[in-house]
């Protein structure tokens, strides 16, 4: 099977074409190329001649790339609206994940610790209750990192420039570092359990420095897979 499309793949991804459309295009081009090579062989050309004639008939990389890139409908959202894909969507995803985490905390408090003043350190929790609370905690703490990895993966897959993604990751890490969960019993509403989230980097300069350090650690964790991928490409350019 001929596979001369690595350059075309890079060109299409950098041109903003969505990876799924790139995959399909390259698959069909590969099939077409094989048919052309078979046709050329059937008229007496040797394998090498048949393959180079087939490639020429298929079209130049530039011609094939432009034909696809010009069709805006095949562009990925990350290319059409990077501000939404990397600025807004990660924050919305983080909001959704934290909502789920708070719901788990609130429902666990009501189900497993009814009457307790706080769900934090109210006493030993065992079995399913423990798993339930730990699951919520895991979502809360790891959501920024997982979402950041998703952003990094999209950037790597689509060969995107890092401007908007970096801004998105910076917002995510700041949100992750500044978030604080509160759980209180509301006296006025008959002792109903209430959970919420607030954001503060800190009041004193020491707190602010600590908050920024947390944000930096989060940012480094989020960016780590992307940095590894870039290093891998730098040392092994043929690896895709």
């Amino acid at each position, binding site marked *: 099977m001929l596979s001369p499309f690595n350059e075309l793949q890079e060109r299409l991804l950098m041109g903003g074409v969505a990876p799924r*459309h790139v995959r399909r295009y390259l698959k069909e081009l590969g099939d*077409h190329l094989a048919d*052309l090579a078979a046709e050329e062989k059937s008229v007496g050309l040797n394998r090498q001649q048949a393959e180079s004639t087939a490639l020429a008939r*298929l079209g130049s990389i530039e*011609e094939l790339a432009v*034909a696809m890139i010009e069709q805006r*409908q095949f562009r990925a959202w990350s290319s059409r609206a990077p501000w939404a894909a990397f600025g807004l969507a990660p924050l919305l995803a983080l909001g959704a994940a934290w909502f789920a985490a708070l719901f788990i905390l609130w429902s666990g408090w009501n189900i497993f610790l009814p009457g307790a003043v706080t769900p934090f350190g109210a006493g030993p929790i065992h079995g399913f209750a423990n798993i339930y609370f730990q699951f919520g905690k895991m979502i809360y703490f790891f959501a920024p990192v997982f979402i950041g990895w998703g952003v990094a993966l999209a950037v790597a897959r689509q060969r995107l420039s890092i401007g908007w993604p970096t801004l998105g990751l910076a917002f995510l890490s700041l949100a992750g570092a500044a978030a604080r969960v509160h759980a209180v019993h509301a006296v006025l509403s008959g002792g109903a359990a209430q959970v919420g989230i607030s954001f503060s980097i800190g009041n004193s300069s020491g707190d602010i420095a600590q908050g920024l350090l947390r944000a930096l650690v989060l940012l480094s964790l989020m960016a780590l897979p992307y940095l590894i991928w870039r290093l891998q490409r730098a040392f092994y350019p043929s690896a895709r």
Partner: protein
Amino acid sequence: MNGVPELLILTLLQHREMYGYEIVQAIRDRTGAVIAVGEGVVYPVLHGLERDGALVSRRKSVSGRSRIYYAATLAGLRRLAGLSQSWTQLAVAIQGVMKGGQYAQPIQ
């Protein structure tokens, strides 16, 4: 040449389904290879027509090879009718201009 690839493809697919290579060879045969572009550029046109709902595709295995076959939909046939009409009008108009030299004065 705007709309020509779509017109040719929809014309070929109005009666039977075909895959990319087949479509390109049919265009080459029927146009006497007058339209010479890279054969691979047919796929963005096919994908665009499919996205617009003018074509449907299905994967089919033939002689051990998996191919993507395309067929025209009702929307595609309507689009073909529109394209055919405008191209016929355009061709008639251009022929009229090319033949109708009776008003032209030779430059002295």
